């Protein structure tokens, strides 16, 4: 059963919560069109403009963030919307790390 940030069964707490713990390792971000918006997204105003707007708030794509916690073991955390998914994929982790080391043009 999924657990919340305190290790309690997720059903006990808001669905807004997820697993705890974030280390320091490589991090990559990419945008996937059509990903679901934030759980509490506000309706589009009839007048005026939401302050500090960005692609996410405007109903566009939201980023998926990959956090390679340990490329050697393939531990990856994926963040998207209000979710966090843990993966163990050594090949993917190594490819992300290699991609992140390419010089940005």
């Amino acid at each position: 059963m999924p657990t919340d940030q305190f290790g309690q069964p997720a059903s006990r707490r808001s669905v807004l919560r997820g697993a705890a713990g974030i280390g320091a390792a490589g991090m990559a971000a990419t945008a996937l069109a059509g990903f679901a918006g934030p759980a509490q997204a506000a309706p589009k105003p009839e007048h005026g403009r939401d302050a500090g707007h960005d692609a996410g708030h405007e109903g566009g794509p939201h980023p998926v963030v990959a956090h390679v916690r340990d490329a050697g073991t393939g531990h990856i955390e994926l963040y998207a919307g209000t979710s966090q998914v843990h993966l163990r994929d050594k090949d993917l982790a190594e490819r992300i790390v290699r991609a992140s080391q390419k010089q940005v043009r």
Partner: protein
Amino acid sequence: MSSHREAPGISKDPVADSTDLYAFVSPDRPSTVTLVANYIPLETPAGGPNFYEFGSGVLYEINIDNDGDGWPDVTYQFRFHTRLTTPNSFLYNTGPIKSLSDPTWNSKQFYSVTRVDRRGHQLLGRNLACPPCNVGILSTPHYERNLGSKAVHQLPGGRRVFAGQRAEQFYVDLGSIFDLANLRPFQEANLFGKMAGLKAEPGVNATDRLNVHSIAIQVPISDLVKRGRPTIGVWTTASRQKVHIAAEDGGNGWPTGPFRQVSRLGNPLVNEVLIALEDKDFWNRQPPAHDKQFTHYVAHPELANLLPVLYPGVFPNLAKLDASGKPRLDLEAILLTGIPRGLIKGFTNFTGTVQADMLRLNTSIPPTRPSRLNPLGVLGGDLAGFPNGRRIQDDVVTIELRAIAGVTYPLIDPKYKVDNVAKILTDGLTGASVTNKPLTRFPYMGVPYDGYNNPS
């Protein structure tokens, strides 16, 4: 302070920094409980042009435990967003703001309220308007009549809600207390005060004429309690999403991932005064159910050891108690479990043996009439006050100072002789030290100070 800027991490994130929490049976609607969670410490009323507002990326929550396990059974969630009426203006307002929908008010804030329990989420309200900050006599004329009172919203089920700027009601002599635990009325007895030749003086309220942002919700008692268990535990939390990608175009960027708790507050002054610096940020990220790991800070408070040192000869019995190494079971009861039946005649707010820092309110105790309210709460014989929940008027600094100095230890050891000064210990302030008084109606927090008349 109660919990203003109390930990290194949260002191750098003011919009998520909880400052005070109140929970009391509503004096004018005794079938309801009012919960007030304050955020954003030490707002100077003239702090424009970007006046204070809630964080749009912050999930604010007021949590209620009704079965004594330190986990929330009912949670009220609040999410805010800001809307600009005139995006191409730098001004907060372009004329007098005469109503919540006035187009002269440029930067408006709105929020949603959701109730969460085991059955799921219930959206109680959305696009609810906050009032503007109290800018000044020209910008926000007749503030409370036109704006403040209009921002009280009725919700389904007999609930009502308010979120916005209010006058700080917590009073404390910060300038003295943080100067080597000096208390102006007793500073000639302070080790360093004596050396400096200081004489006794009245306290100075460092938080007077400052504002905070309040989230207040009033709900039927039946919304909160479990059958046969009238005592609830209350705490507030603020959470942010774990990842944030900064925008390159001036926008807010992309908060991503699950929310992670960054701030919490139950009883006043716990993280502020009892928890050591190295654990304060960690404490903020923990749930009350995990507070057993912090029990030693409550059982052996650093301040109780410091008082006899800083005030030589003034607290001889407290010094002996400290030296004995006995745990302060009185403080553990007050702050971590509630006070069991039999210790105070006619009173209990015990929730069980789970040690958890929560504001415990026995909802079966009726509110005290305003004319008979004692700000010393249970210590003053008024069972409707702190530590039975907390009312706006309760003098929690004096209550906790005296408790730490040993006044409540006879609850555990009736033979303990309380030091004479401990019985009168105070930072020298009372409710009279607050300029804008509490309201007699919801949301009870006073009218915010305006920038024109309170420029510094």
